[in-house]
């Protein structure tokens, strides 16, 4: 149970990261390949401030946000005027620097020895994990609602226009650089906040947590789910992390000798799934032309046919039961 809550919490973190990448890349066309850098910076900042400086979780998080805003704003200023390939390289480099600093700055991070223990922010005996999970869930739901609203706003339309043709948008009086830098600072900071929230989740931090495979997992999820769709990030993480990491790794009856190959199989499945989706549906499972309303309509239709089916099942069950009852009564009477 505790492990399931941990996995689900981690899944929420991944959804949050993919949501932010959706705004950066899906809406604005900024290919941030340094997702793990922002996440890792936030995680280590909260960890160091709590363990080394004895700060409370809330204080540490507050200071971390300030740090993240400064870091992502200046990084944004440096790179957002560049070509997309250059942004891609620069963000990878950024995350590599963060990973390296976690190893080398031992006075702060304890290096490869690791940094711990980071306490849970909610100190209710026995309920820490579940409360933290609910907190993350609320956060992700709020972010999802804001993203759905963003898609229907003037700002969202301008972001899409900036992605499609920045120069043309500028020639119509739009300050596209401002749009990009504000959105980048905001979303990269939230990526870092999600890292900060991962610190108490992991409790013990080591530099080998800051690995590119996290960036790739987030990218794969977003591209699979539909990078331009408001719900693509969430669906993508369900299909990848939810399906493989939680359902298969935790619940599938795998014999011990196969258990070691499961993580490798997972990467293989991610890859195969990605290739399949890109070949048959290049825009991801959720094409941008599918409206969120269509999905909720389909869901509610599915739900109502399901309910209707269940209702009919109950009815026939009741009928059979009635008949049986009547027959038995008849037998009794005889």
């Amino acid at each position, binding site marked *: 149970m505790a492990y399931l809550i941990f996995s689900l919490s981690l899944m929420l973190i991944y959804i949050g990261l993919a949501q932010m990448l959706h705004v950066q890349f899906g809406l604005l066309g900024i290919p941030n390949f340094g997702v793990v850098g922002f996440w890792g910076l936030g995680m280590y900042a909260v960890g160091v401030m709590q363990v080394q400086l004895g700060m409370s979780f809330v204080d540490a998080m507050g200071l971390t946000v300030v740090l993240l805003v400064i870091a992502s704003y200046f990084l944004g200023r440096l790179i957002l005027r560049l070509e997309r390939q250059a942004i891609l390289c620069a963000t990878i480099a950024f995350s590599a620097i963060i990973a390296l600093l976690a190893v080398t700055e031992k006075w702060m991070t304890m290096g490869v020895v690791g940094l711990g223990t980071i306490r849970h922010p909610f100190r209710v005996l026995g309920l820490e994990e579940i409360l933290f999970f609910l907190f993350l869930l609320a956060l992700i739901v709020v972010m999802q609602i804001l993203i759905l609203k963003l898609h229907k*706003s*003037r*700002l969202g339309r*301008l972001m*899409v226009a900036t992605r499609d043709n920045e120069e*043309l948008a*500028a020639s*119509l009086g739009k300050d596209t650089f401002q749009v990009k830098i504000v959105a980048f600072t905001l979303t990269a900071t939230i990526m870092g906040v999600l890292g900060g929230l991962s610190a108490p989740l992991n409790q013990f931090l080591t530099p080998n947590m800051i690995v590119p495979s996290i960036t790739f997992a987030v990218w794969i999820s977003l591209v699979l789910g539909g990078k331009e769709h408001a719900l693509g990030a969430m669906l993508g993480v369900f299909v990848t992390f939810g399906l493989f990491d939680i359902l298969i790794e935790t619940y599938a009856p795998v014999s011990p000798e196969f258990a070691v190959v499961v993580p490798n199989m997972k990467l293989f499945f991610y890859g195969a799934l990605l290739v399949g989706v890109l070949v048959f549906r290049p825009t991801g499972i959720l094409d941008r032309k599918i409206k969120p309303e269509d999905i909720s309509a389909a869901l509610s239709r599915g739900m109502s046919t399901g309910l209707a089916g269940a209702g009919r099942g109950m009815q026939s069950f009741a009928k059979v039961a009635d008949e049986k009852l009547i027959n038995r009564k008849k037998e009794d009477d005889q």
Partner: protein
Amino acid sequence: MKLHMRDLTKAYHEHPVLNVAEATLGMHGLEGLIGPNGAGKSTLMGLLTRRIAATTGTVELEDGDARHPLNPIRSHQVANLGLVKTNQRIQGFESLTIRDNLRLAATAHANETYRGVLDQNQTNDAIEAEIDDYLSQFTFADPDGFAKSGGEKKLLDILRCLIFKPRMLLMDEPTAGLPDDVTAKVMDMVRAKVKSGEMTVVIVEHDLELIWNYCAYVHFLSEGEILFHGTPDDVKNNRVVAEKYMGV
């Protein structure tokens, strides 16, 4: 509005393509800019709207009593002063529908805020009415969908600029790719807006009939230099223009 330029030059890899010592555009309402292929007409328009950085020289936008130097400002600020250009090469926002393209252009940038995300409002009645008006005058195959053909994209580029309500509009070969009747409709609308004093216009065109029909004044650009300017009749009868351009 008028545009003044002085010592304006542009060189690509040390190879000069434009050299205008002094010129003013926009004094006569609807003006034409003609010249052979590669003369530098598009380059000049790019320099004037700050889409392209000049090698040397200054550009100033005259608006009533005010004079705005354009050298220190960026492309979007030029547009917000009221100067906008249509594009020779087809440009567009592929993910936006025709209506969203027009809404984007008609919406003031100041209204595209984070606060506005919460009210989820993408337009208002005045803008919708204007869009309906444009779409009733110009037919698209799927007016509620996307611009499909090159002609539709080109027309949409022009309509985006018109609904922006510029005070000065530069049009780079607006009719290339448009059917004749649409061209006439666009030009009549532009002429009406110029007459009513809403804006001044400079048109780059190879279709000389159109230039003679609509323009009150014509500038002739050849090999990066403005060699002659005058009324359409003056230009038609000019020996230099005839030699360099009309192949006489």
